[in-house]
């Protein structure tokens, strides 16, 4: 795709003004960093960072049968959602593979906001449309809405009245009506805020101005990736794909197999019964050395057991970390593995999630 064909978020000009380095991501021109991935990462761990997430898709599903129908489309149990509550969940195809991972918020009894991955918005919509019933409406508001994530331990200093964890509320911030959700992708406390696109610039600058006293920084996709990987949150397109199901990805917690029926359920029951062939595991390099990267091969002794899907140098740990799919018999915490980097093998150990824990 050429640069001209890439979409721009309503905050594009703001990113340029603040000196961001822009890259193409999922069909969008997005800031990968402003000054330094490591500095932006630390800002989120220690103070506050703010991310443009306007590229993410926002779908509104409503109608008298909305919750019952969504329960047949998504893996987690919508019935567990109180009003204003959200949950992490999956959209699967019939064979159990992951079309998308998303957060579903119950914004009214029979009205839901689905926040989906930028790269999957069109596929999600097409898939939902093919299964849609007469009493359901789906509105893709992505083009008219923006969003930012404000993440870090000092977010509670920035906003006095935060919604409860995983809840979403409509509030006004300095005259801008926004929806604020206590959710995120960094492992820190924080919020994700959604608003009409025309309010984006004003809200973004208000937050950065108000946050100055808490050393707020605008952050790019680079820091977003290192932050989520330290927490072992999966990235769609790297750790998740239509060829992988939630059980293999170690995310059964977000699948309710006790529900009578949802797309992909039969396939998941089979995977559960037979056990997955491969599992997604976090690992940590044993020695200082080159950071692991996606597609590097994984060995145990001399047997090839899998492939890295995410890898980086963890800015918090200053150490190489990653996630890999390895054959199930090897996928045990503490297993010593080797990562092959440019023809040489470097030792690593399969670890427990998350790879980074805040010092208490």
């Amino acid at each position: 795709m050429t640069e001209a064909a890439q979409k721009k978020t309503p905050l594009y000009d703001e990113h340029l003004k603040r000196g961001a380095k822009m890259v193409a991501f999922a069909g969008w021109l997005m800031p990968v960093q402003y000054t330094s991935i490591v500095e932006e990462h630390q800002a989120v761990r220690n103070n506050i960072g703010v991310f443009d997430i306007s590229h993410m898709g926002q779908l509104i599903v409503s109608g008298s049968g909305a919750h019952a129908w969504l329960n047949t489309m998504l893996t987690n149990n919508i019935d567990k959602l109180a009003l204003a509550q959200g949950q992490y969940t999956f959209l699967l195809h019939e064979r159990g593979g992951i079309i998308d991972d998303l957060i579903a918020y119950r914004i009214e009894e029979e009205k839901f906001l689905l926040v989906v991955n930028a790269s999957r918005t069109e596929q999600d919509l097409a898939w939902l449309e093919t299964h849609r019933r007469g009493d359901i409406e789906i509105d893709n508001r992505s083009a008219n809405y923006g969003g930012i994530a404000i993440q870090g331990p000092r977010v509670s200093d920035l906003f006095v009245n935060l919604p409860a964890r995983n809840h979403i509320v409509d509030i006004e911030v300095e005259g801008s009506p926004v929806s604020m959700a206590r959710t995120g992708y960094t492992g820190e406390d924080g919020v994700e805020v959604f608003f009409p696109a025309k309010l984006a610039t004003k809200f973004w600058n208000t937050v950065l101005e108000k946050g100055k006293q808490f050393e707020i920084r605008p952050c790019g996709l680079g820091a977003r990736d290192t932050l989520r990987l330290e927490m072992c949150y999966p990235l769609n397109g790297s750790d998740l794909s239509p060829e992988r199901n939630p059980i293999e990805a170690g995310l059964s917690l977000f699948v309710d197999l006790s529900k009578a029926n949802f797309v992909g359920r039969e396939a998941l029951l089979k995977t559960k019964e037979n056990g997955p062939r491969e599992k997604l595991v976090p690992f940590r390099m044993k020695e200082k050395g080159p950071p692991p990267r996606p597609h590097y091969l994984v060995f145990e002794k001399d047997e090839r057991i899998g492939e890295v899907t995410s890898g980086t140098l963890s800015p918090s740990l200053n150490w190489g970390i990653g996630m890999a799919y390895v054959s199930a018999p090897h996928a045990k915490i503490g297993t010593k593995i080797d990562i092959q980097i440019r023809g040489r093998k470097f030792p690593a150990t399969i670890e427990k999630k998350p790879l980074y824990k805040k010092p208490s």
Partner: protein
Amino acid sequence: MNVPEDLLYTETHEWIKREGENIRVGITDHAQSELTDVVYVELPKKDRQVNAKEAIAVVESVKAASDIYAPVKGTVVDGNKALEADPGLINREPYGQGWIFVLKIDNPDDLKQLKGAATYRRQVGG
């Protein structure tokens, strides 16, 4: 962007400083700023014979690994061990303490293929 007049440059963003029979090589200010946050450097082995445009070192940032190429044919005589402990030297002093390796060159005429500062500056739009 800092592009010192007294150095030579490659298309692939290495700088070259002539030191008698040897050349000292690093990556330019432009390159370090594009890579950002260098976190690991793999140096070439001493005495290795290398060809022009052969990938002989690797500089890794948080996001990606980038090959560093030999500007001309020669033999590796030194690698900057200081980068193993402090790879960030490449970001802080790309033309100084952040040098990567020294080559003994086979043929000084090969250096004529390299770019001058003005040409490189045009390439990076500075």
